[in-house]
């Protein structure tokens, strides 16, 4: 079964249609990249999977989004519980103004976990997974805002992984970072694939080519082409895709 599936998804901001009849399926334990020029709807589409668009007034969505075969836009679903299973990493690192430890422990705390040993173990495990443990293990009580941008982003990844979601959505996770930090995040994405299903929105086509198994190209709210990354970058079927990846527009 496919991990994530979208069926005929349309999204409107007021009168303006931002997504047009999008259908695609994503296999478990793969990395899928969403590419396309600014304003093409790729971030908006990403945010359908954890219902982050709910936070914006005036958004209307039709169609179905299924996760493990369950429709998440059915009214009965508990959105907060759902979001706990779908992690999200944002464009700009957004650690809470709390200590490093409390940032990673946040997800457990809001679940009501109080056991200190559980919290300690989870914080260490998550920071290790995010390849940040060695850099911060002596400074867990320091403010997360004292870290560098790249470290903050890895902290946000650790914070997301602490609640063991099955999917991680990444919205241009490296666009605000320097090349070295970007390389670290990409390496991390590659390693995390064995445990998670990852969807990454990126502006950077080399990045899409490096980290993803499959790539979806969006343009003006439509899914133009969706295929294995190799095919998209070496032998795209559509003219628009070809033009975009060769840098003729976008």
């Amino acid at each position, binding site marked *: 079964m496919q991990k994530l599936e979208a069926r005929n998804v349309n999204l409107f901001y007021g009168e303006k249609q931002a997504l047009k009849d999008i259908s695609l399926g994503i296999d478990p334990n793969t990395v899928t990249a969403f590419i396309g020029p600014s304003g093409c709807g790729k971030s908006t589409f990403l945010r359908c999977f*954890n219902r*982050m668009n709910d*936070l914006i*007034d005036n958004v209307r969505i039709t169609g179905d989004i299924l996760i493990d075969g369950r429709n998440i836009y059915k009214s009965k679903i508990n959105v*907060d*519980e*759902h*979001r*706990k*299973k779908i*992690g*999200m990493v*944002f464009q*700009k690192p*957004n*650690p*809470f*103004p*709390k200590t490093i430890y409390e940032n990673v422990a*946040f*997800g457990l*705390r*809001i679940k009501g976990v109080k056991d200190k040993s559980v919290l300690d173990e989870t914080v260490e495990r998550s920071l290790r997974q995010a390849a940040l443990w060695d850099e911060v293990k002596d400074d867990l009580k320091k403010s997360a*805002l004292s870290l560098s941008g790249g470290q903050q982003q890895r902290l*946000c990844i650790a*914070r*997301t992984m602490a*609640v063991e979601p099955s999917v991680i959505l990444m919205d241009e996770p490296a666009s605000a970072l320097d090349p070295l930090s970007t390389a670290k995040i990409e390496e991390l994405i590659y390693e995390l694939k064995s445990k998670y299903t990852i969807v990454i929105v990126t502006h950077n086509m080399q990045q899409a080519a490096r980290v993803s198994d499959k790539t979806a190209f969006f343009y003006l709210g439509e899914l133009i082409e969706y295929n294995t990354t190799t095919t998209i970058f070496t032998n795209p079927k559509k003219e628009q895709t070809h033009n975009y990846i060769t840098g003729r527009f976008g």
Partner: protein
Amino acid sequence: MVSVKERIIEVILFLCSLLTVLITLGIIVILASETFNFFSKVSIIEFFTETEWTPLFANKKFGILPLVCGTLLVTVIAILVALPLGLTIAVYLNEYANQKFTAVVKPLLEILAAIPTVVYGFFALTFVTPLLQRVLPNLSGFNALSAGLVMGVMIIPYISSLSEDALRAVPKSLREAAYGMGSTRLQTAFKVMVPAASSGIIVSVILAISRAIGETMIVAIAAGQEPKLTLNPLTSLETITTYIVQVSMGDVPRNSIEYSTIFSAGITLFIFTFLLNNISFVIKRKYHQKYE
């Protein structure tokens, strides 16, 4: 010619700002010199340790404590009303209500602070006190409780509006992070937004306290004029401001000891509000640096 005109305007602007500074300095100098006068007749130790304040009686005693105590008691009651209500309103407007509702309700709430305080005073005396007396039969006609409750309502907008501003200033990305982690609205509000806005919220509370301490009409009308060293909110008492009104409007002779007491009381009040405003200033400055 233009440069002369510019120069004249510059001088006028400078004189205006100089004037306000001079007035402030003048007030401080007069307060200080009259207070100095006062302390040449009354020992400073008596002022701070004596538990009675009776400068208008034959047996004069000059202990500021009853007035300070009365002021703080009314202020505490007011904050106990305004903080929970104001913060709840701020969180509601920021996290729950839609933007149109907030845009309408916030200015409406601010009207509370624009109502003349003398109206609040009579509201406390003629409406709230009789109402409370039905539940608390031994509540005296003038009392700290009713004055404090009404003052609390008056300062709600200080806390709700400034706290809402502080919550609104929290970067949107933090809200997204909280929701993205699966927080409920309540968790997002109280585990992420309120802590992130805490310095702004503290500033709002300090300004509200400062406002409550300096508030005059409500307490002058509804709290009574009996300086008492008590923590009982059901009896009448006197605040620093009420005492100053009482003496200023009475017919004490100039340069008498009774006359100079209002300056000693005044400078006590001034020191309180001055300190509070400075604390809020320091916190505000720290807070502005936080997200840069």
